[in-house]
Structure formats: structure tokens, C-alpha cells
């Protein structure tokens, strides 16, 4: 009984001392992002930053920003950042991590960057088991350049460069990155998440945290794919884009853990 009262008192003290239930994490700078209104890039970016802060590694982390809408992510993360040439983020991250193994290294990349021009870098960093964490934003389109077809665009999806819908006979089929990488022995952790609802946002936060923890424990390459939206180039309101994501993207890109080297432990 005595302990119970003590605990309640501590809780009360804690509540009084810290009345803030939610605020901007210090791992984000005060800069206003360049992302369009309602673009989910901002949510995932926040989750990465919050995890750096929670793990106490903001000051010892180096992020690598891609080419794409998140190219100037170095303005938004309060940790050290390097900007890589298009698709080369995993190669740059490899160099950073090998030179500074004590630092946390992550990349933040779109699907055009990671799965098109940068596919070689992605696969080879993964198969080498580089001890880095890749945050992969799959919005099924090239956002920054105005909505061209990406390797992840869905069959039949209308884009600037597939005005009649993606024709798989000529443009081939979308690449499922988690499934593709799951056969590689160097890979420690792969999970596909989305951030379309508050509960999925919380699940995504946990997956990102796991990626950083696996890196801390030296387990090798981790990648968290975040199924995301591009309301601007999809031509939808932010909310309609979430519905389109659920109806069209999630059936093609099922959520889940695709590899976990600690599974069964």
C-alpha cells in the first residue's frame, strides 16, 4: 500500500513537472519543410528524428539525404547530414559507417532514388551487410520532378510518363523492395509499414527504432519501407491520398516484417 501511494505521488509530480504531452522533438531543426501540405514525408521524417532523440543518439548520428523531395533533409534533421548524389546514399553511408563505426548512420530515400537509379547501391550495400539503417519512402511516383512513373508505380497507374496507365507489357512490373532484399544473407531487418493512421504511425515508429537498435547491436543492414503518399502528383487531397494508398498500394505492398535476424530468438 505504501509503495502504491509513493508511486502515485511520483506520477503526480512527473505530471506536474512535465505538462507537455506532445511537442516538436529537438532532433528536428526549426526549419519549415519544403514538403507539400499533407505529404506523409513529414510524418516519417519526424519519427526518425524522435527515435534519434529517444535513443540519445542525435549528437552521434550522421544521416544521408537523397535526391528527391527530401533532398534538403539536411536542413530539417538536427544531426549531422551528408547529401548524396542520386541513388548513391547507401554507398555514401557505407563509407561513413566504415570510417566511423561508432556513429549511427542512416539514409532517407524515395523510391525513384532507392529503387531506380540507386538499385545497384541498395542491393550491394544490403548484400554486404553494411551496418546502416535505410529509411525508404515508397510513394509510387517521382515526386520532386513532377510525377513521373517510378519502379514502384502500380500496374495501370496514371503518371506523367504513363498517361494511359502503367502498361506492364512495356514498363514491367513494380518492384517490391522488401521481398527482393529478403533473400540476401547480409540483411538483418526488413519491415514494411505505413503512416496512414495514428496507430500505424506508432507501429512505424517502433519499426524505425528497431532498425536503429539493430545497427547499434552491429547486426547488419536494416531497411524500413514506409508506404507513403504524394497528394500533389497523385492529384488528390491529403485525405483522399490516404484512401488511395489503402485501396491500391497496400494490396500490392503488404505490410509486415520481411526479415528479422533475431526472429525465433
Amino acid at each position, binding site marked *: 500500500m505504501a509503495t502504491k501511494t509513493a508511486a502515485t505521488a511520483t506520477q503526480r509530480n512527473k505530471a506536474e513537472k512535465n505538462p*507537455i504531452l506532445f*511537442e516538436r522533438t529537438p532532433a528536428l531543426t526549426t526549419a519549415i519543410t519544403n514538403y507539400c501540405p499533407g*505529404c506523409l514525408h513529414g510524418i516519417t521524417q519526424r519519427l526518425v528524428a524522435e527515435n534519434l532523440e529517444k535513443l540519445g543518439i542525435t549528437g552521434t548520428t550522421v544521416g544521408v539525404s537523397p535526391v528527391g523531395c527530401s533532398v534538403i533533409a539536411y536542413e530539417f534533421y538536427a544531426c549531422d547530414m551528408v547529401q548524396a548524389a542520386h541513388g548513391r546514399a547507401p554507398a555514401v553511408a557505407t563509407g561513413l559507417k566504415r570510417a566511423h563505426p561508432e556513429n549511427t548512420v542512416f539514409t532517407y530515400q524515395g523510391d525513384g532514388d532507392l529503387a531506380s537509379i540507386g538499385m545497384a547501391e541498395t542491393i550491394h550495400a544490403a548484400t554486404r551487410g553494411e551496418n546502416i539503417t535505410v529509411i525508404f519512402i515508397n510513394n509510387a511516383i517521382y515526386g520532386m520532378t513532377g510525377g513521373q512513373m517510378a519502379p514502384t508505380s502500380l500496374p495501370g497507374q496514371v503518371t506523367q510518363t504513363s498517361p494511359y496507365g502503367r502498361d506492364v507489357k512495356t514498363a514491367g512490373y513494380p518492384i517490391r523492395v522488401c521481398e527482393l532484399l529478403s533473400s540476401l544473407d547480409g540483411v538483418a531487418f526488413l519491415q514494411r509499414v505505413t503512416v496512414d493512421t*495514428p496507430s500505424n504511425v506508432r507501429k512505424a515508429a517502433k519499426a524505425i527504432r528497431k532498425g536503429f537498435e539493430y545497427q547499434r547491436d552491429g547486426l547488419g543492414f536494416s531497411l524500413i519501407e514506409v508506404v507513403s503518399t504524394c497528394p500533389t502528383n497523385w492529384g488528390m487531397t491529403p485525405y483522399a491520398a490516404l484512401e488511395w494508398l489503402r485501396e491500391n498500394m497496400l494490396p500490392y505492398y503488404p505490410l509486415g516484417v520481411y526479415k528479422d535476424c533475431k526472429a525465433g530468438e
Partner: protein
Amino acid sequence: MAKVTVDIEYCKGCGLCVDFCPQEIMQLETEVITQKGYHPAHCVDQESCTACLNCAMMCPDVAIMIER
């Protein structure tokens, strides 16, 4: 009850907080235009806020602060 504050410098009026608030107490202020040209969101009934944090979870611009 909780205090929900929207920093209108960050808010881009995307409306996601409005769509996700179960209490339906977030609204866009159509008579206000921010420096960036957006109608910012605000909480119209702090008394009814349950501090569920839905709005903060879904805000892509991290414009929302929630206090007890």
C-alpha cells in the same frame, strides 16, 4: 481536457488533424491566411480534447503542441 496549440508558422492547412480528431474539434480557420498562404488549423473546443494525440500523430509539419 488538454490544451492544443497549432504553430501557424508550420501549419500548411492540410486538414489531416481535422480529419483524424475523434472529437471533431479541429478546424481550419478560413478567415486567417498564414505568411505561406495557408488557412491554419486550430482547436475550437479545448474542453472536449481527450489528449488522444491523433492530431499530433498525423500532422506532417509537426505544428501541434499538446499540454495538460
